[in-house]
């Protein structure tokens, strides 16, 4: 409350830097600020900063769910390097991300550009966002039913066309593409709206000028939309890829990693190691660290490659 008493003098600070007394200017609103940031800082330190540091520490220990472990050096990381299930999970996850992000981003750009050129309709934007509002669990349930071998609508259509029914979630080579598409369904509208927001930053008179010059829509997409959208798209890719690498819910509900580890993504394997096989928190933490390193590397490389901080016309 002491902040309130000297408040009137500090209001002048932004305007009259020179005249405010040195002492007041240095401390500024510190007493009030401390009270304002204290709760959030406690939350940040206790549930974000400390767990991050503790997670790194755990990866060097043999901690389990039941007992605090001791320092064992790089043992967990050696185990990780020799663990075929981990590398399988890594490959499965990469394949998932490539499919998920590739299809999702292409579709999202297509939808966003179409909306940008055709309509401002709020209803259409609302409709394409709808799947994002329901949980991954709900999305997984919906597609378990739609893609069911016997009764699923999709298999009924396939059968009606005279083709063989497909085991979408039960086939080793189809399960990851299937899960990738389920999550495309849930996230493509959200991604499209992100891209759409980026498109709205492009000055409309560029298109007008393009039209006057007789440029086709395709030509304008290549020469106006893409160059100006690229930095924005780079950021969207980083955000969506980080999410994509952490796929878990759909796998947990629909396949539990099966058949035969074909959908055992990293996040699911970490969960299994920590909570159903061995309760090995040390090893699970080492895998988390590995995943975080991968995510950080990809973010940095992508940021550089797409020069996400600058556009071509700046």
């Amino acid at each position, binding site marked *: 409350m002491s902040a309130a008493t000297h408040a009137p003098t500090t209001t002048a600070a932004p305007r009259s830097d020179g005249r405010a007394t040195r002492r007041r200017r240095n401390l500024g609103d510190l007493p009030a600020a401390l009270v304002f940031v204290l709760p*959030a800082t406690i939350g940040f330190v206790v549930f974000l900063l400390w767990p991050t540091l503790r997670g790194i520490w755990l990866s060097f220990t043999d901690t389990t769910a039941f007992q605090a472990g001791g320092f064992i050096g790089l043992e967990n990381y050696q185990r990780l390097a020799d663990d075929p299930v981990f590398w399988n999970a890594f490959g499965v996850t990469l394949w998932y991300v490539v499919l998920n992000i590739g299809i999702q981003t292409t579709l999202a750009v297509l939808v966003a550009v179409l909306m940008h050129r055709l309509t401002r309709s709020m209803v259409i934007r609302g409709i394409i966002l709808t799947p994002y509002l329901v949980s991954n669990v709900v999305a997984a349930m919906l597609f378990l039913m739609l893609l069911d071998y016997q009764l699923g609508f999709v298999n009924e259509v396939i059968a009606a066309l005279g083709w063989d029914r497909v085991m979408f979630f039960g086939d080793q080579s189809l399960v990851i593409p299937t899960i990738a598409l389920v999550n495309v369904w849930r996230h493509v509208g959200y991604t499209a709206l992100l891209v759409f927001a980026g498109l709205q930053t492009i000055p409309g008179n560029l298109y007008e000028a393009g039209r006057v010059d007789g440029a086709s829509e395709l030509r304008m997409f290549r020469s106006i939309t893409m160059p100006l959208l690229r930095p924005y798209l780079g950021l969207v890719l980083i955000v969506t890829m980080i999410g994509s690498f952490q796929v*878990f819910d759909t796998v947990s509900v629909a396949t539990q990693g099966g058949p035969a580890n074909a959908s055992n993504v990293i996040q699911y394997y970490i969960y299994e190691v920590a909570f159903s096989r061995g309760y090995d928190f040390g090893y699970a933490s080492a895998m988390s660290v590995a995943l975080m390193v991968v995510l950080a590397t990809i973010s940095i490389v992508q940021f550089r490659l797409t020069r996400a901080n600058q556009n071509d016309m700046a």
Partner: protein
Amino acid sequence: MTTTAPSPTVTTTPATSSGEAPRRRRRRPTAGRLLGWLVLALVMLATLLPFYWMLRTALSTNAALPGGAADPLPVGLSIEGFRRALGLATAAESLADGGSGASLDFPLYLMNSVIVATLVTVFQVFFSAMAAYAFARLRWPGRDVVFSIFLAGLMVPIIFTLLPNFLLIRDLGLLDTLPGIALPTMIMTPFAVFFLRQFFAGISVEIEEAARLDGAGRFRTFFTIILPMAAPAVATLALLTYMTAWNDYLWPLLVSQSDQSRVLTLALGIFRAQAPQSAPDWAGLMAATLLAALPMLLLFLAFARRIVNSIGFTGIK
């Protein structure tokens, strides 16, 4: 081409901002535009069809489903699926209708979800708003450094904090409780702080200064000027936070062990796991899925414009 456009809208939207007007003008339907609309229509169909199919299956009976698997309307119309999902059907009724006979306490899970999402939303938004105010409007040494550290928190993948937070919640004795599920995101998220800071920074300094000259302290200014003026942003953030908390699955899966802390997403997963693999109770499963999705869909229906408009802002941090 633009001059021949016969649309009356041209006159109502003169090219004041050359950016907006040309796009609003109705152009002749070309093959390309038709194709574009066709693609958009297909995307919307693919978006909405699964929702319709969920409703249609939920209102069907399991006995009739194999006979009319592609029937666009409910087959053997009944609400038994909903009764099973809500735990209103007796075990015998449930088994007779192709259910698992397992009982689920749907109202309890609904209440648990409401409690968790409400706790997370109210406290997270409030504490984050306080911090955002200190970062946006107060001048104090170290402000920018502390804010940068908060921002760096955005980069930490959630999975990384899961195991240590699980140990922490366990050591606090909060496993299998609703506060245990809510606590890690209840105080702040870096995103919430960042989101609100952007809005607070945009509020006119003059109004705040006028209040300060009238003798209002920082706290009164915050509650009577800043919060009300940022109400739309605060409401938007609250909606997004509520949705996120409601849809969360992995963290509650770790913390919850029994009915007392089971939230809807978990219950749905369990309902699915209990369904016989050979002949799943699709009507019951879809009814449960629909019930679990309904609150978010209703929320969306009520606040669609606000949520849609927030997306462009939230994605790029």
